[in-house]
């Protein structure tokens, strides 16, 4: 019964990735713990986030061993959400700026 077409990879690989995920999570927690602020905080948080997400998708979900056709079909469409998110960030800033300019802060 050697016909199993599934994904078989050495256990060690999973353990390594697992460990790496712990380390990355720990790092992002440390960003908060040490109250890193400003751009640096964002860069660190997003970097760690993307690294973690990438590891999970690539190794745990085996995407890196899938064929490129599947990888492309899964990773390209979310770009539409990215467009939405970027434009909504701009829209949010615009709204906040207008509110700052025209509206009184509510009476305490």
């Amino acid at each position, binding site marked *: 019964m050697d016909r199993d077409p*599934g994904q078989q990879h050495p256990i060690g690989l999973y353990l390594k990735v697992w460990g790496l995920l712990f380390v990355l999570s720990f790092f992002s927690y440390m960003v908060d713990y040490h109250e890193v602020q400003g751009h640096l905080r964002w860069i660190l948080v997003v970097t760690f986030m993307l690294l973690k997400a990438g590891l999970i998708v690539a190794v745990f979900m085996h995407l890196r061993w899938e064929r490129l*056709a599947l990888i492309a079909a899964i990773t390209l469409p979310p770009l539409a959400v990215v467009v939405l998110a970027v434009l909504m960030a701009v829209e949010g800033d615009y709204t906040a700026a207008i509110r700052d300019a025209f509206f009184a802060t509510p009476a305490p």
Partner: protein
Amino acid sequence: MTNPTSQTQSPPASATPGWNEVVADWAADRRVFQVSWRKSMMWIFLLSDTFVFGCFLTGYMMVRIATTEPWPNVSEVFALTMFGQSIPLILIAIMTFVLITSSGTMAMAVNYAYRRDRVRCAALMLATAALGASFVGMQAFEWTKLIEDGVRPWGNPMGAAQFGASFFLITGFHGLHVSAGVIYLVIVARRVLAGRYERRGDYEIVEIAGLYWHFVDLVWVFIFAFFYLW
């Protein structure tokens, strides 16, 4: 579940790695992805679910940016007093570690499934489910604590009303996913133990359950970054 054709159809001969391979795959007859129906459907479902969470997070981001009310200091709100010391975000950190641990056990379960190690596979899946359940438990604790602090969907004493609303909506929706995943894993684990997949000689369902579980973890990575660390 393999298609009857899965063995007969090798990747098209002209395939070379890279984009040529993509073109060849999409130009092939019968199927585009060299995976089973179930697995391809799970992937497509997860893609759709990505859009759901993407829109949730985008909506949360937009209202958070747009509101002029101060946003509560998240790392204080979610701090716990342990050993007489207030440690920021500690519960969330523990939850994150629990979920990552569960992802690790799930990955191992898939591995053992393909190795035909029924018992270890089921044990690891049950461990995953247990970790998932404890994650939901901690989330319930966190909800209770926040509700005690006066946070409601319609407002909170610490600032912007959207804080409570987004928190309950997004973590609630994620929590539902985790809960559904726990049930799903328990069912599959039982079937693994009962030998159902052994008889069929096909353990792919474990990997598909794993895909779902890792996705839930993946979503948490984004929630952790955007909700708790912002």
